[in-house]
């Protein structure tokens, strides 16, 4: 093969990458790249920053690769220098140990900053509204404790109000994801995870389960509708006026494996969500899960190999008391 062919191949993939990037600029089907709320916006900015930082390294290195492969190809008339014993240069090596360190440091800064930011409500001026999310075998149930209504596979939220989701499951693990509004969090039995999302404009958004949970998982999707506050209020009173109330039996029926249509309920059994969370509470006293306690701060990863035993309660996901703001 000639170096030319190699160049063509490299060209090819640069083109492929560029096409991908260009495509993503437009099309509204690129949900992640068309953020509709502050959380998705933050994440979108991070995606852009990290892409640029990576490109800063990759593009020159690719160019360098193409150049080297072409220039030092084994041709009888190649005039380029050939130094078979040249194998060490401290300055050069220091440079390329250094460059990634700098890039990673910059990227690390943004990452850590936004990791903390996203744990909090994106909008400090407006009090958040709470919605409880329960993943069931293959449907989503939403309970609105403040409005005392419930829905299935359909989520309606007011525009401009941060929504505080408490997420649990009575099913295998799922993940609650509305890409237009922001990234996901797992829905797990016996725990209540938290997520803040907010819609900045009215609209209809797609919601997914993005963690495989069995046979009909592919259909475990839901619709999110964002409306101005008054219309949202109107919808709430409509639901209260026209829909049936959810009974315990309704819930037991609902949680049986299978698919479900969109459903609206004018009320739900009191404390239903808390009951679901506590039912699988790892045998702990569950009070502290539902209370908002500060998380333990000791989060150093510990080597698993060592004796005596490591304290796994500091490991990710092991801190059941991490229900904090």
């Amino acid at each position, binding site marked *: 093969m000639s170096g030319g062919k190699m160049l063509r191949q490299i060209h090819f993939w640069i083109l492929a990458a560029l096409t991908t990037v260009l495509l*993503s600029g437009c099309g509204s089907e690129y949900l992640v790249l068309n953020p509709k709320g502050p959380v998705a916006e933050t994440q979108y900015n991070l995606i852009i920053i990290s892409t640029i930082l*990576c490109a800063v390294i990759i593009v020159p290195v690719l160019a360098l690769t193409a150049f080297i492969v072409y220039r030092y190809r084994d041709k009888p008339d190649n005039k380029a220098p050939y130094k078979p014993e040249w194998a*060490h240069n401290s300055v050069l090596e220091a440079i390329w140990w250094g460059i990634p360190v700098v890039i990673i440091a910059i990227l690390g800064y943004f990452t850590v900053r936004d*990791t903390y930011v996203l744990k909090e409500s994106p909008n400090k001026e407006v009090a958040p509204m709470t919605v409880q999310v329960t993943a069931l075998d293959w449907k989503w149930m939403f309970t609105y404790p403040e409005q005392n209504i419930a829905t299935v596979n359909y989520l309606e939220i007011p525009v401009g109000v941060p929504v505080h989701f408490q997420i649990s499951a009575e099913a295998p693990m799922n993940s609650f994801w509305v890409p237009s509004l922001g990234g996901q969090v797992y829905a797990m039995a016996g725990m209540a995870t938290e997520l803040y999302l907010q819609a900045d404009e009215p609209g209809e958004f797609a919601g997914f389960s993005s963690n495989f949970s069995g*046979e009909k998982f592919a259909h475990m999707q839901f619709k999110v509708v964002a409306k101005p506050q008054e219309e949202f209020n109107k919808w709430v009173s409509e639901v209260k006026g026209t829909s049936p109330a959810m009974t315990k039996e309704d819930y037991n029926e609902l949680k049986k494996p299978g698919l479900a249509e969109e459903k609206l309920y004018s009320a739900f059994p009191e404390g239903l969500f808390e009951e679901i969370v506590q039912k699988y509470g790892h045998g702990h006293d569950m009070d502290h899960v539902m209370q908002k306690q500060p998380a333990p701060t000791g989060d150093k990863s510990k080597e698993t190999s060592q004796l005596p035993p490591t304290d796994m309660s500091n490991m990710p996901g092991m801190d059941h008391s991490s229900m904090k703001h």
Partner: protein
Amino acid sequence: MWEDIKDFASTFFVTGDPLIYGADVSIVLTMLAIVFVLTKYKKWGWLWREWLTTVDHKRIGIMYLIASLLMLFRGGVDALLMRLQLAFPNLEFLHADHYNAIFTTHGTIMILFMAMPMMFGLFNMVVPLQIGARDVAYPFLNALSFWLFFLGAMLFNLSFVIGGSPDAGWLSYPPLSQNDFSPGPGQNFWIWGIQISGIGSLATGINFIVTILKMRAPGMTLSKMPLFSWSVLSSSIMIIFAFPILTITIALLFLDRFAGAHFFTMDGGGNPMMYLNLIWMWGHPEVYIVVVPAFGIFSEVVATFSRKRIFGYKSMVWALMAIAIASFFTWAHHFFTMGTSASVIAFFAISTMVIAIPTGVKVFNWLFTMFRGRISFKQPMLWTIAFIPCFLVGGATGVMLAVAPADYQYHNSYFLIAHFHQVLIGGVVFGYLAGIYYWWPKLFGFKLDEKLGRWGFWFWNIGFYICFMPQYALGFMGMTRRYYTYGWDRGWEDLNLVSTVGAFMMGIGFIFQVWQITYSIKHGERDTTGDPWDARTLEWSIPSPAPFYNFAVVPNVKDSDDWWATKQAKANGTYKEEPVHLEPIHMPKNSGIPIIMSTFWFLIGFGFTFGWVWMAVVGFIGVAVCMWVRSFQYDTDYYVPVDEVRRTEASLGRVL
């Protein structure tokens, strides 16, 4: 009675799908054909003596290679079936449960039964030759490792026709993988297939650490050891630290399923999240276990085909070791989205990014090995050059995924799928293929055909980008992994179709490679020199294929590229011929115990899979008897007399 048998058979055998009936028929036909050929040509004894009982690391390596290529075929067919199903929206080619089984077996097979054995094949084929040893430290254990892997893999693959395949994902997250949601033997097949082959992997890790530390030729200090052997050391160290965690994790999962324990159950105080932590404490190092040897291969290939010493040898070694250590501190990035505290997430995000530093350094060193070299584009080098851009992009998207808050948007989407296929295909598969092309002549005595290989290469490469680049975009569209179908309303159909086309191109590339191998067996260029690439390290100083004792005389090593230095010295006329002194060579005897003992392990696995405890008990007794018998064997090795060594060398064209 007849009804009972029919009843049993209909649950025992997987029924109801034409694909599976087709597979049944082809499996039976293939087995019959093998039995027929072996009987007709009276090859049973030969098969037993020369292969099934061998402890020769080269033959074990070849068996690993063959098994892994078969598994690559199976995993590849799985992939193509999935891509067919996703080619258009709302297709009904595969049903949900069938699709779920296929992505589960695809992932499990590709990592554990394709990448791992191909890697162990390369370890076996190369390391002893490269460090100037006559075998690995424990040849018997080595054979046992192979047979444990092989029978574990067979047990796993049996699920295709008997009992039903696992379908809870390649890492079988509970609670989904528990009895409540996945009843039946499928998950048990997964557990025992991996458990049995995992014991073999652990033993291989120990074996190669000792081999590398203790069996290097005189003069080969660690700082003169070739980089592939360094990468094997790094990988083996990761194996011995990671695999015990896997053993325990899936043993606990089995106890949950079999004995009603409550480790990972939703009720009874179980904690499914603990499984995620444990499995990824193994799973993340596992990814580096398979990719680090590929780095080693690239280092050898780049130096050989640039006709230049590897650049920054010390940096390379430090980078390998840094990766090995750092790989144990990143596991939680596989589940940033579990809603844990910000400081935990931040720690794992940073630790993950840090891995990019040594990896980046390696790329620069490879580039500067080519710089001021003379690059010839032989097949191993083609794959290496193709690897660099592919791995750069895959690595960059990996860094992007490590940005935890952004990961909330990528997680479990096709962006993630595209990323890990890019590092696993672009890094691991390209690397192993480069290694196979490179060392093939040493093992078999002939080169693989260049022309067919190039067809394969271009189909693989172009197909790769067509298949996986669109998947990054699909991830941004919200397409989640493991969807067996999707509707027209999302706008995913175009890119999915493109991706499917790319997958089939890779399939065509694989067919070219199979053709290439079969063609080359007859017509491939024979290697009479033992050094077809004008290479640099010890394995090229002996004839191809290597004699069973490897080195007639163990070399005295003076340089990190010792064979290259010897050749240079000979060319300059400064080479001092040392007097050759042949001695009887100490070699291990073949043994049938590894395959027999592994068969008993297979019985254990099969018994537990179906809950037939009696069969498992028979298996355990068999294993114990095998160990007992082996412990009482003291006559386990022999000496090859000088005459035989001289005759063998002469037949290979070397006069001593």
